[in-house]
């Protein structure tokens, strides 16, 4: 587990960890706020993985909620029908989703960008329909599924605060995986593919393999996040896995900034807070998403992180 983390990054990580540890204590009187923080952590895992796909290997998936869904329903159903402890069903569900992702990715990655988006939308819809009207009603169809808490080594995570700390550890773990992935041969290959896949091919990079690998990794992250979600709220229904969730992931990623570690953090936090702020006016939610997305694409395609970077450059320029 090498970590080539410079001094500046080390400070950022310290701040992140300290804030993360302190947050539930700050909100100890408001369990709902801790729940929102849990959501943020879960979405952070999913969107970080999504960043590997979109930001680093330059592919698009507009049905990523499908893997989130497979993770959630997979873990809940496995636990319900086989009694395997939740800790393991979450992992099994994530691995299953990764396999499914690899299978779907194999023919999808050779498609042109806009056809890839169609294919991923179609896949997302297929998964949604399968859980909405499942054969033999094994997913509970529209009524959804109830499930139970996650227990870690016998310690049951039955309060939001306990789950929060577990989620924080998982976030750090997943971020570490992502960081090491990206600062390795694999990551560099993906960046090369993103910039120009023909050139990368010419340099001896196995383009197909890495494109599929990016899909697989992002599927794993999304599915594990989905499983976490299932055992946090303990009730899942097809409504939580519609096309709008896929677009939300995309909005979070693009708004925060792609191809970075901190971009997803910014994007997820802001959009989640927006979600909560819009709860009384939930009928306007789609409108706000649309406007936000349009804003980001039209005005700052690099997301908030892109804006920060260009501002920093301007300041450095001025100093000179």
């Amino acid at each position, binding site marked *: 587990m090498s970590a080539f983390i410079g001094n500046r990054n080390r400070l950022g990580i310290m701040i992140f960890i300290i804030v993360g540890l302190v947050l539930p204590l700050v909100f100890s009187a408001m369990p709902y706020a801790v729940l929102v923080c849990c959501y943020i952590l879960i979405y952070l895992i999913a969107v970080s993985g999504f960043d590997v796909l979109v930001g680093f290997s330059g592919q698009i998936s507009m049905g990523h909620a499908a893997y989130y869904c497979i993770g959630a329903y997979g873990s809940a159903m496995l636990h319900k029908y086989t009694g395997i402890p939740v800790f393991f069903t979450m992992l099994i569900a994530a691995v299953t989703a990764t396999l499914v992702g690899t299978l779907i990715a194999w*023919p999808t990655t050779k*498609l042109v960008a806009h*056809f890839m988006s169609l294919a991923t939308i179609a896949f997302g819809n297929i998964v949604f*329909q399968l859980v909405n*009207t499942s054969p033999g009603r094994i997913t509970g169809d529209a009524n959804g599924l109830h499930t139970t808490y996650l227990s870690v080594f016998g310690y049951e995570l039955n309060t939001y605060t306990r789950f929060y700390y577990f989620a924080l550890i998982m976030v750090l773990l997943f971020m570490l995986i992502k960081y090491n992935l990206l600062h390795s041969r694999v990551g560099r290959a993906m960046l090369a593919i993103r910039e120009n896949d023909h050139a990368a091919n010419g340099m001896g990079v196995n383009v197909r393999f890495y494109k599929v690998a990016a899909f697989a990794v992002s599927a794993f992250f999304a599915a594990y996040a989905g499983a976490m979600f299932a055992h946090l709220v303990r009730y899942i229904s097809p409504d939580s896995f519609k096309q709008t969730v896929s677009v939300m992931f995309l909005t979070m990623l693009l708004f925060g900034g792609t191809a970075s570690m901190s971009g997803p953090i910014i994007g997820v936090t802001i959009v989640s807070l927006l979600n909560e702020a819009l709860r009384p006016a939930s009928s306007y939610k*789609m*409108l706000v998403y*649309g*406007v936000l997305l349009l804003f980001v*694409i039209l005005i700052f395609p690099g997301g908030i992180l892109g804006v920060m970077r260009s501002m920093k450059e301007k300041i450095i320029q001025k100093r000179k």
Partner: protein
Amino acid sequence: MLITLFVSGIVLGCIYGIVALGYSLIYKASGLMSFAQGDLMTVGAYLGITFYSYMKLPFFISIILIGVIMFFLGMGIERGVIRRLRRKGVEPIYVVLATIAISFIIQNGCQKVWGPVMLNFPSIFKTSTIQLFGRNFQTESIFTVIASFTIMAILQFFMKKTKAGTAMRASAMDPIAAKACGINVNITTGLTWGCAGCTAALAGVLMGPLYGVFSTLGSQIGTKGFAAAVIGGYGNFVGSIVGGLILGLLETLTSGYISSNYRDIISYTVLILFLFIRPWGLFNERTIKN
């Protein structure tokens, strides 16, 4: 029962076909995919109700008004969003995302302006049903079939045989070369999106009496419209209608004989299969490489 299902399938297929025509038009003439088409249809349907039902204007006037409004709406979207993005030189996928964002805005906007309740579109024709093969069908559905084939023929003729159509195709294939030939790429692209907006409007007005009008009318049909376009060959007008018919028949026959639950799954699976195995569709429409 087979006859009823068959005719319903044809009608549904023609609706998908008209939507697919809009997609193909935009793709043929600007090389882009627009997810906003379905929702433009919704706007067309809502405008139809406003003019025809609330303001009691004659149907012919309503259609013309709607056509003009939607034409400018389509052009407006192109000029305000698409052109700006293309000038920036962003990846084409961002344009697709922008159209998705527009689709969200339109959907929610319609909900706010016209209310969340499903509205009723009154019958357009004096005779509300027509007898065919011994069964009764809504007049509008037969009209839809006729309209879709007509539009397809018009578009096919326009794109292949007229100067303006060829100019549009040239702008899509290679904007710089087209400009070098003296074609005003901006105007042709704007016109195309305007026409696509009109097509969407017409589809919406036709669908209103058949399905009722609600804010997600377009997006549900829209995604299926994509499937229709891909099956027939994305960008091919005859293919759009044929693809639509195939999809429509597949859906209604599946609903009728197997179960209506699996209708959507079948559509999306067919879409994915075509994308994976034969993305150039039934009519061999090669994609425009950027």
